[in-house]
């Protein structure tokens, strides 16, 4: 009696676990107004940032953000603009990660979303761009 009940419990738990895994196989929701506007904003900014990726003034960090890597690549008067670009880009990226987690009903996924993006930004970086390595050093793609 107890044994069959125990078996029932185990089966039940396994089924529930399986259902959870199945449910997680689909796509993530990324088509919300908030996410779309962040994507558009980042896409537009990219036209100003791309040349800084190429010069090495801006690098891709390991945590899915960007940073001023070598300000000397930019004439002094333009450095304020450079750091403003970096700050704006990082604001959008942070918001993007947060919004994706939230859009999928799991605000607690934010860090994992960010880690996933961090890896993919670096994987997709163009030749010549600078990316941060595990030891925090910089490498050129």
């Amino acid at each position: 009696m107890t044994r069959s009940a125990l078996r029932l419990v185990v089966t039940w738990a396994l089924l529930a676990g399986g259902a959870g895994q199945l449910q997680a196989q689909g796509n993530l929701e990324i088509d919300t107004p908030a996410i779309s506007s962040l994507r558009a904003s980042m896409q537009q900014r990219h036209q100003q940032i791309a040349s800084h990726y190429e010069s090495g003034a801006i690098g891709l960090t390991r945590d899915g953000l960007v940073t001023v890597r070598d300000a000397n690549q930019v004439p002094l008067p333009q450095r304020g603009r450079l750091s403003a670009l970096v700050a704006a880009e990082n604001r959008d990226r942070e918001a993007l990660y947060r919004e994706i987690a939230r859009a999928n009903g799991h605000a607690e996924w934010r860090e994992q979303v960010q880690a996933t993006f961090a890896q993919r930004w670096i994987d997709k970086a163009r030749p010549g761009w600078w990316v941060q390595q595990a030891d925090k050093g910089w490498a050129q793609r």
Partner: protein
Amino acid sequence: MVPTARVKSLGGRAALLLGAILMTAGCVTINIYFPAAAAEKAADRIIDGVWQLPNGQGKTAPADGDRQ
């Protein structure tokens, strides 16, 4: 004697059932793990759009693709 044992076993069974329900609820809550593959796909879609990469895979894009 017999009724007492019966009640006791009923109580045991109820406790077991309650345990099963709690366990299932726990599994459902905990087992919604992060969908890594879906997240990667979403990241690729977004990055390709932001960086204007031809919607290829993680490879590097053709040279001078984003230079006008």
